[in-house]
């Protein structure tokens, strides 16, 4: 019995693939998820500053002062921007929200009226919005809410008791100020910041879009790596040699593989979105042109990625060992598992180097932001995916020629 167990242990520790899948993959994923969920770095990491886009339409000394005060807080990193540009960035998914100080902010504050402050957001970034809004409401209330409410209360009092003598009035004013000092109710605090979703929240929920796009791209990456690795299988089984005996130029053997990988990838993504349509009601037919373009671009980039990974390896077994780790890491960084906005900033910066990020954002552009296919943002994402795919294909071809196509 123990002899059998020892033999199995020996085989397990001698199997590099089993070791990678058993230890390296879980360790890498635990590390990534720990970073992604903010579990690394303790309180310091949890209290990391959030970027806050601010548009100051009022442009008064009062609004500038409040914005400076917000900027000085450790919770925020304020970025000032013109309202139109800021709203565009939110609409395009580059920012989660913008805080707008509308014209008349200072005057309203001085008159003791509710100041015109608006928080415009992208509802697809639900978690980010909740954190930002929670932190913002309390801080803003402490800065302007108390002052505004007090002025309002004193003005109301004066209107009700216009004939009161000045000594009594001063005493009661002091009492009201004391009673209201920092003790405003949460309900009142929330009431003066107007919140508006910049994107009409219609039939396609961001959760559904993320689930479909994120999962489809991740699973596609697994599939295309296997397709890319088939050329190594052909080498191991001798059929590649036979292909090389034929008059077919070696490049065409690779291109043939690429074409089949692209067709299967396109088909796989199409089926995934059709399933999402019929099972969950994702509205794909209203956006058919941009969807087709994004499916083609994503399929091309994913297929190229599969070819690239396979081109590094010398055997199919090597590809299988590497692929699980690489796809899971890339999917984690790229937002397939966790939305990128919920990740620490360094991971968000890294995400732009992944196919997942550009594809998922592209699908958000279509179903959530409802961008037209000629919209520059959407076209940029398509261009990036095609560029990534082309660069990876060029490298893959060179490596395949050096490794797989070389027959000793």
């Amino acid at each position: 019995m123990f002899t059998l167990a020892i033999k199995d242990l020996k085989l397990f520790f001698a199997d590099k693939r089993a070791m990678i899948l058993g230890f390296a993959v879980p360790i890498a994923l635990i590390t990534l998820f720990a970073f992604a969920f903010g579990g690394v770095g303790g309180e310091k990491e949890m209290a990391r500053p959030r970027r806050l886009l601010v548009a100051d339409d009022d442009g008064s000394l009062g609004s500038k002062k409040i914005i400076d005060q917000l900027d000085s807080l450790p919770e925020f990193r304020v970025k000032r921007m013109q309202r139109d540009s800021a709203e565009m960035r939110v609409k395009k998914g580059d920012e989660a929200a913008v805080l707008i100080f509308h014209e008349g902010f200072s005057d309203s504050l001085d008159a003791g009226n509710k100041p015109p402050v608006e928080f415009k957001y992208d509802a697809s970034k639900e978690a980010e919005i909740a954190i930002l809004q929670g932190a913002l409401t309390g801080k803003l209330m402490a800065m302007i809410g108390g002052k505004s409410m007090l002025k309002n209360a004193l003005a109301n009092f004066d209107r009700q008791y216009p004939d009161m003598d000045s000594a009594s009035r001063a005493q009661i004013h002091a009492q009201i100020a004391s009673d209201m000092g920092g003790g405003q109710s949460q309900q009142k605090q929330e009431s003066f910041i107007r919140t508006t979703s910049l994107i009409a929240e219609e039939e396609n929920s961001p959760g559904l879009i993320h689930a479909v796009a994120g999962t489809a791209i991740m699973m596609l990456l697994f599939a295309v790596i296997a397709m890319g690795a088939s050329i190594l299988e052909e080498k191991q089984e001798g059929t590649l040699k036979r292909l090389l005996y034929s008059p077919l130029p070696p490049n065409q053997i690779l291109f043939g593989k690429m074409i089949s990988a692209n067709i299967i990838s396109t088909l796989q993504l199409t089926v995934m979105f059709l399933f999402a349509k019929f099972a969950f009601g994702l509205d794909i037919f209203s956006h058919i042109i941009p969807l087709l373009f994004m499916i083609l671009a994503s399929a091309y980039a994913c297929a190229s990625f599969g070819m690239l990974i396979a081109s590094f390896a010398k055997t199919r077994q090597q590809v299988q060992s590497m692929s699980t780790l690489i796809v899971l890491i890339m999917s984690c960084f790229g937002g397939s598992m966790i939305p990128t906005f919920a990740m620490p900033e360094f991971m968000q910066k890294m995400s732009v180097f992944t196919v997942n990020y550009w594809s998922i954002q592209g699908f958000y552009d279509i179903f959530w932001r409802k961008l037209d296919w000629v919209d520059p943002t959407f076209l940029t994402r398509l261009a990036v995916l095609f560029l990534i795919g082309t660069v990876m294909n060029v490298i893959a071809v060179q490596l395949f020629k050096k490794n797989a196509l070389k027959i000793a």
Partner: protein
Amino acid sequence: MISVSNLRKKYDAAEALKGISFEIQKGEFFGLLGPNGAGKTTTISILSTIVEPSQGEISIAGFDLKKNPTACKKNIGVVPQEIALYNDLSAFDNLLFWGSLYQVPVEVLKKRIDEMLHLFGLYERRNEKIKTYSGGMKRRINIAAALLHQPQIIFMDEPTVGIDPQSRNLIYEVIAKLHQEGMTFVYTTHYMEEAERFCDRIGIMDNGQIIAQGTLEELKSLSKIDETIVVSFSNLDDVLFQQLATTHNSIVREDGVVRFLSSDAKADLSTVILECNRIGLSITHIDIQGVNLETIFLSLTGKQLRD
């Protein structure tokens, strides 16, 4: 049809081919014999354009291999040593795929596939997946796949390794038929009877060189061996064989017998018997036979073909 001059191939420090040269005429059956590592497969790989030579001139069907590899490829068919087929495709689909790589028109190709399937006795099973085939049946399809585009030259690298006698005989029949029809063959094998049966000329390779080439008769005369004395023993072991080998240079041990190479067997017979008795070997049977490729190879290289 094929001309090879001073062909060399180096892999880092190792030299797999050390300047071999040979000519093969149209319709000729040329065999390449040699032990493992002699350079046979490297030669076939270079001639079939998948390995680049380090040096040398090669012409195939009138085309320079370096300048016009595609034209060379169109004129050759290659039967690789391994079964190079797609297991999950049927025999018909495999042949259709491999044939289409040579741009044979589909209708012509389908006709050729039917002919090949009949020729190799597999027409009835044409729609079954290759993975359901026996080793011998796979070998037959492996050969058929190289013949679809009707090449002028066929390279066969150990095409009958590890198959049943029925498949082997069927393959022999096909080879003989194709040879009769005028196809040029370059054939490597470990089976001496195949080489002796088919080859018009034979090149004997050892250590990256062709040490001798010619017809079987020419090789016999080169080896200066006319006969072999074949002796069986009741007590042959490694120690006694080694003792025997110190007294006779040209002996081969195979399948429980020892072959003594000789240019005059009758004269050498008494010496062989006396020597065996002297070292304590008990002879159970003794015979005088003619030479074969195995003994020719031994006399030329001092090594056995299957070393």
